[in-house]
């Protein structure tokens, strides 16, 4: 049965991808990208990788779609005709595809319990992590503790993305072009619905943030969901109102503080005589230490992701606002 579901989902995925290639209307392409992400999320659910599915749905289908729409508002919705011959790129893509297919020929059989990925490193994560780390959700144990350095690196990747966007677009608060009239002032229904939904989204984000130890969730997803709440606010009530709630400068400080919070856990464990990011040293009881460490670093991730996503949205939409004035 799962095989059938997988096949159907993969077929839909392939169809969506083909449609994306041939469509010229970029607005439709962005929508299809959202669908593509949701389909991938479904496949991940079918593979029992709920954490990955959750991230894919929140990041791939959620925030990426919003940011791509923000880009379209700046660039226009139609793809420009490409005059150059596409023969060489086509050849390169075909060769790459052929190597990928060739690589699958010796692949371990799909879904077998005795595949190398399940036999070498993973058994310790599965058998010992409840005692060593003490969390019911092993995925969180692996990403926040065993491979916590990678997660720090990924948080810094998100932070670097913010630096890139600020360098290219920047956000100027004192910009006169942003009048309070922007936003959807005349839509009363939207106002009421948004006011009802936003608190719930924020509450859900907090739940996802702190429930990551026990079920799917964690800082990345929570940060994105919280950013979505503020983006909704900015869309309905206008950018200036959103700026007065959280200012762009404050967000930059938050993004930095999130990274620093994560890294300071590492520094503290070094001061306590452990290695960098050794949570065992954070408390007298190693399991408690692991728990404190994971909660704090997940918070750091959540703060940075939230601040970066919202900052990027601010950067795009203040550009759009400036463009509209002109």
């Amino acid at each position, binding site marked *: 049965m799962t095989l059938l579901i997988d096949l159907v989902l993969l077929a839909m995925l392939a169809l969506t991808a083909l449609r994306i290639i041939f469509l010229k209307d970029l607005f439709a392409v962005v929508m299809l990208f959202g669908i593509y992400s949701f389909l991938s999320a479904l496949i991940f659910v079918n593979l029992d990788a709920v954490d990955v599915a959750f991230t894919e749905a929140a990041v791939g289908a959620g925030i990426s779609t919003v940011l791509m729409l923000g880009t379209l508002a700046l660039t226009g919705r139609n793809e420009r005709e490409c005059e150059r011959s596409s023969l060489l790129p086509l050849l390169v893509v075909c060769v790459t595809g052929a*190597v*990928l297919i*060739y*690589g*699958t*020929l*010796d*692949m*371990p059989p799909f879904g077998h319990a005795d*595949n*190398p*990925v*399940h*036999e*070498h*490193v*993973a058994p*310790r*994560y599965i058998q010992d992590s409840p005692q060593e780390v003490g969390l019911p959700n092993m995925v969180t144990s692996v990403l926040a*503790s*065993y*491979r*916590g*350095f*990678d997660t*720090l*690196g*990924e948080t*810094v*990747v998100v*932070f*670097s*993305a913010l*630096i*890139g966007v*600020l*360098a*290219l677009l*920047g956000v100027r608060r004192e910009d006169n072009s942003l009048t309070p009239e922007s936003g959807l002032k005349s839509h009363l229904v939207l106002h009421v619905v948004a006011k009802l939904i936003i608190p719930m989204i924020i509450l859900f984000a907090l739940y996802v943030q702190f429930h990551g130890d026990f079920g799917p969730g964690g800082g990345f997803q929570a940060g994105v969901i919280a950013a979505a709440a503020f983006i909704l606010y900015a869309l309905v009530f206008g950018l200036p109102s959103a700026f007065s709630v959280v200012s762009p400068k404050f967000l*930059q*400080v938050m*993004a*930095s*503080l999130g*990274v*620093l919070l994560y*890294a300071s856990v*590492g*520094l503290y464990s*070094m001061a306590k005589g*452990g*290695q*960098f*990011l*050794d*949570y*065992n*040293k954070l408390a007298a009881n190693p399991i408690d230490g692991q728990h404190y460490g994971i909660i704090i670093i997940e918070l750091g991730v959540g703060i940075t992701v939230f601040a970066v996503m919202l900052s990027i949205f601010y950067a795009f939409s203040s550009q759009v606002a400036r463009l509209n004035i002109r």
Partner: protein
Amino acid sequence: MFEQHLAALPIILPLIAAPIVLILGRSTFAWAFATLVSAAACYFSWQLLWVAFDSNVISYAVGGWPPPWGIELRVDTTNAFVLLAVTALSTLVLLYAKDSIENEVAPSKHALFYTAHLLCLAGLSGILLTGDAFNLFVFLEVSSLATYTLVSLASDRRCLVAAFRYLMMGTIGATFILIGVGMLYMKTGTLNMLDLASRIDLYDSSRTINSGLAFIMVGVSIKLALFPLHMWLPPAYTHAPSAVSAFLAGTATKVAVYVMIRFIFTVFGVNHVFEEMGMDLILMALAIVAIFKCSYMATVQSNVKTVLAYSSVAQIGYMILGLSLVSAAGLMSGLIHIFNHALMKGALFMAVGAVFYRVGSVDISAFRGLGKQMPLTMAAFTIAGLSIIGVPLTVGFVSKWYLVTAALEQSHWAIAALVLAGSLLAVIYIGRVLEAAYLQSASPDSEPVREAPWLMLLPMWLLVLANLYFGIDTSLTTDAASSAAEWLFQTTESAAQGSAQ
């Protein structure tokens, strides 16, 4: 306490400093703080190199989890040597950057420049020190994103197109590396490089492993701008701010060369990559074409930064050529050239940046008469240029010497001759600039030009002196490179024997 964490400090210091710079972003403070942090990272990597000399390998288990379950930082003379070059160049470039950046980058973006520079440094250190294939990818992303940002910071609008091309090619390269690492993980169930190496031996002829190898090699080749995948590099280095060109030309692509060395020698094993897959011939052919095609391209450019950018691609050719000789001597010449090239290209780009600071153009015609008007800058350019050519008493000569010796050791007479012929092309492209500077006089109606400010001259001349010092006293570079090369060959051979038994 510092000795214990020596392997982690060059990564975490700039990593933590970057957000602090963004928060406190006053221009002068940001500059001083970033320079200090970079200098500290350089000091620790110097210490690290000496520890690596004594004990060969330092393993640092991040988070206290032993490898392969946790992430390991693994330092030997190879990466400690390259790290020293990267951190030292970063410190000198930051010293130089203050005046240069004030001239070339909008004031509101100064703090962003220093933040991005520190992120790039942290990423490069991470790539160098990590012993984990996926962790390498994560730091590759950190350094790449920071690099694209740095290139796009110039006030010249053309830098945006250059940065965008770089972004596209770089992302394809990084994705290929990720696909390759994924294939290795699928087949072996581990991400730690040493663990990968011992388990890959079990599946030497597996198609999945071989396609993984192909993806990683192509991905890294894009990152290190191996001909013909170098098209992103000349525009990026031409239009980036001068300080960025000076830093990236000496570090970013060279760290990618290190990644290639690491994957070939430590992960896949030299027997598998070179003898069974025959990649040495492919690399050798591409390297030779790179040397000649790009040296020739350098001779016909009118923008001096483009000249130096094409020269960089040609120099990468020399490194890969050394690698493709499949001998300890060849590998050693490649490693020495990574270090030496950072010294010479750093000095050259700094000199060109100083000319841009005073004259406002880096076209070859702008150099007319500068030999008299900016004597110190042009003297620095001349010495570093002689080093690129490979004149004795400079580091360039040391690099070429070891490369030619390595080629002759295997009786590759043609290759030795080609290396020398490549130097002749370098004579032409460096000579064109020198001719404009010293033999032509400035047009009479142009305004007089003053010498560059001392804060730009100081790091430039430190690099020039290093060019001469390491050209005469080669003990540090040759010791480090030869012990690294022997160590890499020894481990790969013992691994091969281990699997044969």
